[in-house]
C-alpha cells in the first residue's frame, strides 16, 4: 500500500507540473487528467471510496476540455494579484486554525530550538534549523513558492 502512495504522489506531481508548464494546451489537459488520477489513487490509499469515485468522475469530465477548441491567450486580469493574495491569506488562516486544533498541532514543542542559546552561530542557519526541526517548513515552502510566483510575474511585466 505504501507503493500506492508514492505512485499517486508521482502522478500528482508530474500531472500538476505538466498542467502548468506544458506548452501545448491539449497536452496540459492530459497532464491534468493524470493529476486527477493520482488524486483518485491517493483517496483509495486514504480509505475513501466515495471521494475516489468522485475524483474519477471529475477526471472523466476533464476529457470534455479536449473537445473545446484551443483559445488564444486573453488579456490579463487586473485584480489577479488581489485575488491571489486573498486566497493565500485565507489558506494561511484556515490551515493554521485546522492544524492548531488537530493532534498534530497539540504536540508539545516547549523544548524547541528557539529556547536554545544561539550565540556565536549563524543566524540564518539557526533559523533554517528551527523551521526544519519544528516541522514548520511546509509553511516556509508555501511562502517561498508564492513569493517566487509574484516575483516572476513582476519580471515578466
Amino acid at each position, binding site marked *: 500500500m505504501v507503493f500506492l502512495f508514492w505512485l499517486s504522489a508521482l502522478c500528482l506531481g508530474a500531472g*500538476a507540473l505538466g498542467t*502548468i508548464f506544458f506548452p501545448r494546451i491539449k497536452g496540459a489537459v492530459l497532464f491534468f487528467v493524470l493529476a486527477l488520477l493520482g488524486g483518485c489513487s491517493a483517496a483509495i490509499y486514504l480509505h475513501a471510496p466515495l471521494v475516489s469515485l468522485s475524483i474519477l468522475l471529475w477526471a472523466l469530465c476533464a476529457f470534455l476540455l479536449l473537445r473545446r477548441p484551443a483559445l488564444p*491567450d486573453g488579456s490579463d486580469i487586473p485584480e489577479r494579484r488581489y485575488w491571489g493574495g486573498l486566497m493565500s491569506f485565507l489558506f494561511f488562516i484556515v490551515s493554521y486554525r485546522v492544524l492548531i486544533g488537530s493532534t498534530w498541532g497539540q504536540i508539545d514543542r516547549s523544548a524547541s530550538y528557539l529556547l536554545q542559546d544561539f550565540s556565536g552561530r549563524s543566524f540564518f542557519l539557526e533559523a533554517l534549523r528551527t523551521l526544519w526541526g519544528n516541522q514548520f517548513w511546509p509553511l516556509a515552502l508555501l511562502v517561498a513558492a508564492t513569493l517566487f510566483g509574484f516575483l516572476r510575474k513582476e519580471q515578466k511585466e
Partner: protein
Amino acid sequence: MIGFPLIQSPLGLPHFLLLGLFLFSLGLYGLLTTRNSLRFLMAFQLLLLAAVLCFTAFSDFLGPATFNGQAMAVLSCLGAIAFLLFFARGNIADFLGRGE
C-alpha cells in the same frame, strides 16, 4: 529532527499535507501567471484537488469515526465537476470575456 524525516518515517498526515501544499503552490502559481483561460481553469481546479486531498487526509488520520472530511471532499468534487461542465459549454469564458 535534521535530515529527511518524511522519507524515513512511516506514511502519515505530513506526507499528504506536503502533497497538498505542492499542488496548492503550483495551482496558485498558475493562477497568478497564466493568461490562457483553459489553463487558468485547470490551475483553479488544482487548488480544489489540493483541498480535496487535505480534507480526505484529515478525515482519515484525525477523525476516522466521522465522515465530515469525506463529505466535504465529495461536495468539493461535485462543485468542481459542475464548474468544469459549465466551462466546457463555453459560458464561463464568455462571462469572463477572456480568450476571445
